[in-house]
């Protein structure tokens, strides 16, 4: 079996839970419904031999609905194939389903997604922040959070202050123009 066949098997088995399947340069991304995400992932693990959860990450598509997207990268060491599964999480719910029961390594990945974007995972045994300190009031990887940060204060634990950006952030412009057009420049600050 290869990735294509695994994707086809999923497509047949979960016909009504799959929103779309995209093949880009032999990397297959499948968009699935949130309600069936655990079921599908558990099928991937048990029946399709995806024994390795590479990563769980989340994306903030500010302005779109559903706003957040949780991305699972799974891999099979047994057969050497890879799949990417995505599921939308709405702004109002902000809750995905934990897969810690399938792959214990999901624990920290889900905590990171929670820490950075504020998405909780139903069934997670220990839903705490992992990078920022417990009690930090913001979710810094959200698109509406300023790069410079915000003021926060927790006596004896930590504090934070916005940083001086001096006209930044300085971002590159990916295009085929000459270097001086591409190199990092200040852009209008989006906050």
């Amino acid at each position, binding site marked *: 079996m290869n990735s294509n066949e695994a994707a086809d098997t999923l497509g047949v088995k979960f016909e009504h839970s799959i929103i779309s399947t995209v093949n880009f340069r032999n990397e297959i991304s499948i968009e699935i419904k949130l309600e069936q995400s655990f079921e599908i992932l558990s099928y991937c693990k048990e029946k399709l031999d995806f024994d390795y959860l590479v990563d769980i990450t989340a994306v903030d598509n500010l302005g779109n609905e559903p706003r957040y997207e949780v991305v699972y990268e799974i891999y099979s060491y047994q057969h050497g194939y890879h799949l990417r599964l995505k599921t939308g999480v709405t702004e109002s719910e902000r809750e995905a389903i934990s897969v810690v029961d399938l792959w214990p390594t999901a624990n920290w990945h889900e905590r990171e997604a929670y820490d950075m974007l504020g998405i909780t995972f139903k069934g997670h045994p220990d839903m705490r922040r992992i990078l920022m*300190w417990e009690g930090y009031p913001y979710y810094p990887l959200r698109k509406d*959070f300023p790069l410079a940060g915000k003021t926060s204060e927790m006596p*004896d634990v*930590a*504090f*934070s202050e916005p*940083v001086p*950006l001096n006209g930044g952030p300085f971002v590159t412009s990916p295009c085929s123009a000459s270097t001086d057009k591409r190199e990092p420049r200040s852009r209008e600050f989006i906050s």
Partner: protein
Amino acid sequence: MPKNTAPVAYDSKIEGNVTFTKLDAAINWMRSNSLWPMPMGLACCGIELMATGASRFDISRFGMEVMRFSPRQSDVMIVAGTVTYKMALAVKRIYDQMAEPKWVIAMGACASSGGMYRSYAVLQGIDQLLPVDVYISGCPPRPEALLEGLMKLQKKIETEQSFVEQKKALLSELS
């Protein structure tokens, strides 16, 4: 060097004889030549700090090789690396646990100013929390730069007048 702190001249040929010096000069000579660092290696600069301690650069030529991982036993905290807000108060706590006299070196761009990390998670310079004696530029600074920074600190210690100041404080208390 200020005129009231003469350097100590030690002549092994007259060992056993009497040497005259000022108490401050003697104290400073002893302090500055056995600086025990507290290696606060927090990021990539910590690797350069380790290189400084290893054989090629050999920090022990200057009497600073006794890296102590206990704040109680160290004199100079070398903050080597990116200080995140999460780590910042831990660094402060360790500094507070160090016995006086104590000094701080901010090694590298990150420890001095936050460096390239203009971000929500990084303290913009350890000098917002601790009194820094020597800043070392570089990303990371070369081991030679760290050694020079430590030697600058030695020079600084040699100008201190802790005993004179104590005496002054005592006299003003009594009067």
